[in-house]
């Protein structure tokens, strides 16, 4: 008998003889945190929460050069579909629209789209379909997510409902961080040390 059959048999025997509990019906309200229950302005709450988890809001595309002035280099990766949006403001930057792994350490920033934002947690939803290069959103020190205001959803269950047939979805809630060494917070372990978001 295969491991699969043995496991299934044992599980069946273990559950067969006992009363089985029903699935509890629950209303989404039970998981909504107080912040979202009291919120009237989801965009405002998203900005506030994004800031609270250590993200940096970029007020307008035109502010990008200022936000990137301390970047380690002028090199960056950008989603080709976003190029028309930023080409005029990012003059003087060296921009690739194909992520070149050989240059992984040279890219100081990556600009990709977010599929949605979650107001109650300040999270970005990145999906396979919306992210032109996962490496571009992960490897550079700075990640800038471009998010349409209309794609901000109130809660975590709302964001989960957007997954559809997407095989790869990710909530990003602030910059990469660790507190493994004596509980001291350090940003930028493997992913971006600076997580930005620009609403359009």
């Amino acid at each position, binding site marked *: 008998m295969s491991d699969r059959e043995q496991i299934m048999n044992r599980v069946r025997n273990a559950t067969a003889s006992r009363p089985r509990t029903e699935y509890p019906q629950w209303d989404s309200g039970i998981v909504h945190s107080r912040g979202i229950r009291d919120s009237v302005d989801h965009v405002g709450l998203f900005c506030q929460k994004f800031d609270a988890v250590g993200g940096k809001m970029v007020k307008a595309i035109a502010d990008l050069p200022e936000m990137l002035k301390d970047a380690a280099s002028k090199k960056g990766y950008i989603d080709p*579909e976003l190029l028309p949006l930023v080409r005029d403001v990012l003059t003087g930057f060296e921009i690739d629209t194909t992520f070149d792994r050989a240059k992984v350490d040279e890219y100081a920033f990556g600009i990709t789209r977010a599929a949605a934002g979650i107001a109650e947690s300040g999270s970005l939803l990145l999906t396979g*379909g919306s992210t032109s290069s996962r490496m571009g959103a992960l490897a550079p020190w700075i990640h800038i997510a471009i998010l349409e205001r209309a794609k901000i959803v109130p809660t975590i269950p709302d964001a989960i409902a957007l997954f559809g047939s997407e095989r790869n979805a990710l909530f990003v809630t602030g910059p990469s961080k660790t507190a493994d060494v*004596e509980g001291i917070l350090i940003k930028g372990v493997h992913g971006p040390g600076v997580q930005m978001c620009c609403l359009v």
Partner: protein
Amino acid sequence: MKSPQSIDRYADALPQSVRETVFEGTRVPTIWRREALARDYGDSDPLRKLAAQIKQHTLDHLDQYLEQAETRLRENGAEVLFANDAASANSMVTRLLRENGAKLVVKSKSMLTEELHLNPHLEENGIEVVETDLGEFIIQIDDDIPSHIIKPIVHKNRRDIAKSFQREGLGDYNDDPETITRRARKHLREKFLKADAGITGANFVSAESGRIVLVTNEGNARFCITAPRLHIVLVGIEKIVPHDRDFAVFLNLLARSGVGQQLTVYTQFINGPRMVGVPALAGSQSPGFETGSEEVSRASDPPKGGTPTDAPTTDGAEKMVVIFVDNGRSSILDSEYREVLRCIRCGACQNVCPVYRQASGHAYRTTYQGPIGAVLSPLLMKQDEFASLADLPKASSLCGACQEVCPVDIPIPDMLVRLRDRAFREGASQAKAGTPSMEPWAFLATRPKAWRGMMQAANLANLVPLNLMPVPPLMRWLGSRELPKFRGGEFRSWMKNRGDDTHHE
């Protein structure tokens, strides 16, 4: 006097520096946990009870949900395997890596792979495996084992870590946590890019969609499944939840319970390998960037965000294999301890446990430590090895804090008591060590006349000057306490003489 309990001896011998770092490392998240839950929910008990019900329901129907998850994953192009035990799981992983020509493997933190002792197995088979969670990386270079479910190096301080980095050629001695983190980033970045395969665990699996959830703060799991071409997931069969929507219940509890965060930084949902050259499905919305309406949906409306599409992606693992591991779980499911399988490994019970905090994780001699470990570890042993860990359930004052903080309301204290009973009935020597014999008491308690006599006679104990007796444990105990006068037999005589007042209103 040396305690016959090995956990006590370990705690006594613990260096002061370790005791301090463990105590502090568990104190802070306990405060943050309480603050986060109170701030966001006020009373979080209903959410905790709901989580327990969902998990219990899933366990009660585990056969159906396991098959459902398996089917969904296969439909999405993932390979699904089942492993009875550690030996079977480990050899499956080795075979998969060999078949795919993988020599270097990056790994994201997984308690299951610790339980299976996967790393030593891979190394014996000539495969280089690199832990990428900062804490687990330090555990690996020190040839140590984790001492906490989510804070594997809670027993180490920055000086210990700086010495390890120096020894491993990762730069001169420097105990600045930021420098340590940067050095690890650089070192592990190279490994990510060179690796042939990534191995991860899974926090949850949805039966409805096959989606596995991986949570990290560092982003290492994301790297493990983005850079290499093969992704192997090892997951315990109990990690299933019925629907994607249920993730919201557990994700809202997991990080808050563990570290007081609303969500961890990266919460990953994957149910198949990357789509290669498959066009977007007809009818699905274009992935093109468009400016939508300025109106933002309200909580009551259906979400208006864009629907993600099935567009081909340029990176990510081309092959995904999910291995469901039993390794003793189905036996627990078939026992009176089945509720322990609800555990979502948040570590809150460890942070709050007065025994864990004094003794540290390694005192428990096993992968799962603290209150949850004292239940889970002996139960995961094969029947004939249960006795070797039968003392762990005694490492508790039964204060109940573990159940109080548990996000899935596992009755840990009850289970500890039942396990003590089992250990006694099975005559486990580990469990008997240091426990006074209850036989004289049992003798008296089953003989009313002898009991009454003893009660009266024991009043003589009031004449013994206990505080002057040169018995060190007694002196310590009485140093800050006063023993009330023994009043044996008084209750019985009061009962006899109180008269019949049951008819009074």
